[in-house]
């Protein structure tokens, strides 16, 4: 253990390496600036138009937060319900995943007809985009729950909602959390992509605008902001994960801690 550098350090080294590459590759002329402007010129572009980017970030952030609530909240709830009731599951799940098979991005311009071209359509699009994977992941995670636990809860008179909140969701926590990660990331992508397609505000709008005029440093300044959104979201998830760590004691993720702490059990592979 001690012979190796810590995971965090290595990760930071990798990040630093990537940053250095980002600066050096374009500078050395290995990648044309059009495709990847150097980090410094990106930062300068972002800094000189900080006001514009700040405004765009506010718009995007609002859309992301609202969509996140719909996508993740709704996805987990519905996934849990559908996943735990066998009949709706076999009936609905195939249709839901088929629905997701419709390439929404292509239809997005048409959707704006009904949803308008403001934030609503972005929120709707991103919500659907993030909702389905969250729901599918949650529903699938529910199926790995030990049925004995549900039986026990039922015997104690747990209502459907109590079973959902007190048994199904905590038992599926690891799956739900990763569903949340996927869903949340997709919400960010969904908002940005829909802004890129149709809008007059937001980071996605800036990205596509600057892209049309080949202003790559400004494009990547936008991408950088998206990355910051992702970092923020990741921090929130980490926080939830820490809070939920005790819930995970029954799972591999939770127990790895104990085993490493006691110097026992080498990894299974």
């Amino acid at each position, binding site marked *: 253990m001690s012979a190796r550098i810590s995971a965090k350090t290595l990760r930071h080294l990798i990040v630093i390496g990537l940053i250095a590459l980002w600066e050096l590759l374009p500078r050395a002329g290995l990648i044309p600036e059009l495709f990847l402007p150097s980090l410094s010129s990106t930062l300068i572009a972002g800094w000189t138009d900080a006001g514009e980017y700040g405004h765009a970030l506010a718009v995007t952030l609002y859309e992301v937060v609202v969509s996140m609530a719909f996508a993740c909240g709704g996805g987990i709830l519905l996934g849990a319900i559908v996943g735990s009731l066998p009949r709706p599951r076999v009936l609905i799940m195939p249709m839901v995943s088929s629905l997701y098979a419709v390439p929404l991005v292509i239809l997005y311009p048409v959707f704006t007809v009904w949803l308008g071209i403001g934030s609503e359509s972005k929120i709707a699009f991103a919500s659907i985009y993030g909702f389905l994977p969250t729901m599918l992941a949650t529903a699938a995670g529910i199926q790995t729950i030990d049925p004995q636990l549900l039986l026990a809860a039922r015997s104690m008179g747990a209502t459907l909602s109590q079973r959902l909140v007190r048994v199904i969701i905590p038992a599926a926590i690891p799956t739900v959390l990763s569903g949340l990660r996927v869903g949340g990331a997709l919400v960010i992508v969904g908002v940005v992509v829909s802004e890129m397609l149709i*809008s007059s505000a937001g980071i996605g*709008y800036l990205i596509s605008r600057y892209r049309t*005029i*080949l*202003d790559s440093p400004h494009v990547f300044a936008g991408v950088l902001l998206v990355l910051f959104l992702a970092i923020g979201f990741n921090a929130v998830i980490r926080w939830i994960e820490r809070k939920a760590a005790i819930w995970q004691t029954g799972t591999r993720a939770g127990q790895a801690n104990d085993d490493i702490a006691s110097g026992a059990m080498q990894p299974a592979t």
Partner: protein
Amino acid sequence: ADTIRVGLPTKTYWPTTIAETAVRQKLFEKEGIKAELTIYRSGAETFEGMAAGAADIILDPPSLVSAGRKKGVMSRIVANAAMGNFGWQLMVPTKSTLDVKDLNGKKVAITAAGSGSDLLALWTIQDKKIDFTRVSVGGGGLVPNLLAGNVEAAVVYSPLSFQISKSGEAKTILDYATAVPPNLTAGWIVLDKFAEAKPQLVQKAVNALYGAVAFMRANRDVTVKLIAELYEMPPEIAALEYDNTIMKLETSGDMGAANVSAAVQLSLDLAKLGGLKDIVPVEDVISTKFKPVPTK
């Protein structure tokens, strides 16, 4: 034989008709070269395609050449393709009573910020001394959003503009083909490196392309049929496209012509309106080395 890779900005845009005609009439073959056509999503993507080495000759506006030079992509316009925004129109739904000056404070749809339609919208704002919000809705969103009332007007390209005006869904309140003073809206572009390395190939390619223009002018029926097929549109709309767009295209393509410099300058000025900061002098944008000799 050498292969020239031609990059085209959208399928239903007149450069596609030119290139397809050149292929079908075997004009490239007559020049002793082969052609490979690739269709991109828009002008910027086409330019990126060339920069990435996936296209040898493309059609794009001067503004992109200028911006590209600032980003280290050295290319020039070698042939003048069009000197006006033919087929581009500012449209409102048929039922609407709005005129251009009534658009003050309204919403107008464009395809993408910084694109050709955006430049025209900005020109309208400046020229007509009004102000409206430009909403980028993408090519696919123009008509749906106009019809649904999400926007009051839209800057529509051809042949979509002909199509919806013919079907009675929308009407034109400003025709950019005539309203905007002549400027070099688009030209055939090659990388400097490529022009130096294979001048023969470039020359042959423009010969074939301008041969196609000549052929199209001389063969109305064949061309209308081709447009109808390529665009999946009824012949009457194809005919409109032929009369209002194809027939207006430059036939000589000579970048050395007297009016070209000013036309390029005007085009760059328009782009400046759209937020383009990377303007380089006109002489860096054009090349007069190649004078097309239309293939017969």
